[in-house]
């Protein structure tokens, strides 16, 4: 008889905050086959465009996901704005960038914590999330929500940040950076952590390209591509280089995300320094018509909003192709031959966001 264990993994599982399911076939602890399953969070919100006006749909878009919520709102708005040819004020662009980068920090910190939890490092998880709270406070004080901001609207943003608050944000970032260093050093240097990460789940550059990985997943495999370089929002005014690592293992992916946190901190400082005065919202009239693919760099990688409008207030189609969705084939690839103990590591290093994936 076979020496293979066949067990379900998830959807309810303590290391997976979100429901994803894997059929695992194991030999001892070695994964010989793993088929992921999604659909536990599928709501079908893309179809809501038929019931919600396109201006209202922002509220739905930003509830695609509570982690990368802000950029969903922003991406959707950007797509519609581009279809309609609206040019939003520069200050709004900066504000959007600021929140987007703060979101990236919060998202990466959240991920670092979850990763630590998955490899059994509870105290590291706690400290990562402790730091993250400071960013959430910034969110709440500037937008009114810790998770869902509701500040993006077609044509600009709803809320402004005054100069003092802006300084305050930079101060928070500065203070955080020091503490963060202590934590990230543990990820980078600690023996037990490296034991869990180095050489685990290797995705070569070639493979990464073939399976169409995106975001940190791709950059950790040595592919230099970052959608922020497209220059949407205020990125065209800012100075940064995509973070790239070459090893393609879990460790490299961790490094990429860690370095991206610091990068985001830098971008926030740049934003604060360069932020112009002015309006935060451009009034517009009319209905959109046309279609467009809009690409943004979410914390987890390239996201694509496809909007097709027909000149009425109800859009024909909105489709969000999220980074996790594209990273699932990559997940499949790295799951082959890893250990059961690595499975959470694998799942987490694509930084899965299931609600994004399934919408």
């Amino acid at each position, binding site marked *: 008889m076979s020496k293979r264990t*066949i067990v*379900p993994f998830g959807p309810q599982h303590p290391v997976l905050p979100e429901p994803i399911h894997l059929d695992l076939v194991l030999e001892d*602890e070695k994964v010989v086959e793993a*088929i992921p399953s999604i659909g536990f969070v599928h709501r079908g919100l893309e179809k809501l465009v038929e019931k919600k006006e396109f201006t209202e749909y922002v509220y739905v878009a930003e509830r695609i996901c509570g982690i990368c919520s802000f950029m969903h709102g922003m991406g959707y708005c950007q797509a519609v704005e581009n279809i309609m040819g609206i040019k939003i004020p520069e200050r709004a662009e900066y504000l959007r960038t600021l929140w987007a980068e703060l979101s990236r920090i919060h998202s990466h910190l959240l991920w670092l914590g979850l990763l630590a939890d998955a490899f059994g490092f509870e105290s590291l998880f706690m400290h990562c999330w402790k730091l993250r709270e400071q960013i959430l406070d910034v969110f709440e004080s500037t937008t009114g929500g810790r998770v869902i901001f509701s500040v993006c609207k077609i044509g600009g943003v709803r809320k402004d940040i005054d100069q003092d608050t802006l300084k305050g944000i930079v101060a928070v970032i500065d203070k955080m950076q020091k503490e963060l260093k202590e934590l990230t050093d543990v990820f980078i240097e600690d023996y037990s952590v490296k034991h869990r990460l180095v050489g685990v789940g290797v995705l070569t550059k070639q493979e990464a390209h073939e399976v169409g990985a995106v975001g940190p997943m791709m950059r950790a495999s040595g592919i230099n591509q970052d959608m922020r370089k497209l220059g949407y929002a205020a990125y065209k005014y800012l100075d940064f280089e995509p973070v790239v690592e070459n090893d393609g293992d879990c460790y490299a992916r961790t490094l990429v995300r860690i370095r991206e946190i610091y990068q985001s901190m830098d971008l926030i400082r740049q934003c604060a320094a360069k932020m112009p005065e002015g309006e935060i919202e451009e009034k517009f009239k009319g209905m959109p018509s046309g279609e467009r693919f809009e690409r943004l760099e979410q914390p987890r990688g390239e996201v694509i909003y496809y909007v097709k409008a027909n000149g009425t207030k109800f859009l024909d189609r909105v489709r969000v192709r999220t980074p996790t969705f594209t990273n699932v084939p990559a997940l499949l690839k790295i799951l082959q031959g890893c250990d059961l103990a690595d499975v959470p590591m694998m799942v987490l290093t694509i930084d899965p966001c299931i609600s994004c994936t399934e919408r």
Partner: protein
Amino acid sequence: MESILFLIIFPLLTGVALLFVRNDSIRRIIVRTAAFLLIIASILISVRYFDSGLELSLHKEWINYGMVAIELALAVLLIAISIKHKKYLPILLVIIQTTIINWYEFSYSHEVEIHADIVIDRFSLIMILITGVIGSLICVYALKYMEDYHHHHHEIKDRRNLFFFLLFVFLSAMFGIVLSNNLLWMYFFWEITTICSFLLIGYTRQDIAVKNSFKALIMNLFGGFGFAAAIMYLGYVVEIQELNKLPALAQSGIELLIPAVLLAIAGLSKSAQMPFSGWLLGAMVAPTPSSALLHSSTMVKAGVYLLIRIAPTLGYNVAGILVMMVGGITFFLASLMAITKSDGKKVLAYSTISNLGLIVACAGIGSYESIWAGILLIIFHAIAKSLMFLSVGTVEHSMGSRDIEDMHGLIIKLPAMALMMVIGIAGMFLAPFGMLISKWAALKAFIDSDNILIVLILVFGSASTLFYWTKWLGKLVAVLNKYERIPAKLTFDEWVSMGTHALLTVVVCFIFPMIGNHFIEPYLNTQFAQHLGSVISDGNIKIMSLMLGMVLLIPLGLIVFVTLKEDRIVTSYMGGVNRGDNRYFTDSKGQAKHLYLSNWYMEKYFNEARLSTIGNITTSAVIIVIFFMALGGVL
């Protein structure tokens, strides 16, 4: 006095009779009666010679000539079979051996004075009891088993008459070995076991069986060659031909290194130690009763029997180191390899090799304590291992598989067999049971003899032992509500055989202090000139018995527990995708998929091929180095 020969002659005659019986019911009557008589006889003889012992000398030329004649006939038989299968190495070995031994027999053996051809002491009694009781029970068990076997395997020709003939001849030879004091006699029986095992392993006449039988033959002939050489050396140089003279000689400081090494090689090959372990694994192709016989009470036990007999001789020289190292390495590596196996019989085979390694190591140390432990190990191992083999055989016939993975939930499918196995496994390694007691004694002996390397090997080896037995146990006790009982009709023969085994496993644990006091220690006192008493203190024995009592209460407790329990039965945890009956879950495609829980085998980690290469190389190296050291020391 000569009545003792009953033990040798009676099984032989029974065997011959069975050779001509093809009728099932007649065979059944003969086997049952013979087994019953043998058991009674072994017990009676033990009682009879318990105090007095026996030293019997039969100055009968015709016996010797008879033996020579039979030997020659068998040699011819072997050569014929080998030629038929185009195997030439065995021919060479047979010829060399026969020549040596005959030449010695005719040219010199008359000049060596023999005091006793047959000696019975308490150690022989233990072996007689094991062979008589366990061996006979296995024969009884074989009745039903072989019937089923041929029922399942139509491709194999039914030669049961031959099979039972061999079984009984085997018993006869085994009695011969443990009774003989005259080395030439012992050698004679020794060779008979070799041939019987050769024929038994090749019973099915399938290619693999033939191949493995020759493997066994070659390795055993090699050992036989060592035996023959030892006899010659002893006869010529030391001028003795009796086993019981050796310890005294050794203690008086006579150089016995070369014969010790040669006998050790004989013992090691027979007890399937590395690098000779291959034959025993190959022997698994034979029908289970013969495996049980080979692995538990006879064959391999003959090897360790010889080693233990000469143990006091070994303790004084490098031959001891040889035996100890080979035993130790084999113990450790075989138990690691057992981890990678899921075939029940393979696991048992490795466990046998491993446990014998321990006994061999005990013999190699050759101290009072270590021999004490070694003998205890022989007893417990014989019983528990035999029980395991028989259970695996029955399970195989009931479910059509002897794979441990298939024994998942056996406690539901075949509760009685599961219970037998649980007892057997517990007997093999668990705390208050036999093997563990002996291991404990062995550990103590090893420490006291300052052999720290062996101590290390023992602690690591027993950790691995724990692993593979417990995971087997785990398979057995997995409970799934939906499993069907497998209708298994155990026959009376099987019940008697396995039931007695199970009972013995438990009872012997309770009475082992008595065995120690009344059998082992008196024997050791004669071997060593001092009296050291029990290795395990009384206080500890009491606690052990208490524990055993507690463990035996478990089944009772279970029944009470199950009756009183008020659990709400829920489905098992599957991350929420249960399909209701603990067997299926909803897979990624939305279909029902069977949950399957396999044990770990860690084949990459404890790679069988790699480990056995390592083992074979190191043990061969040890043997070769020490062999040449011995030669060099003499030259």
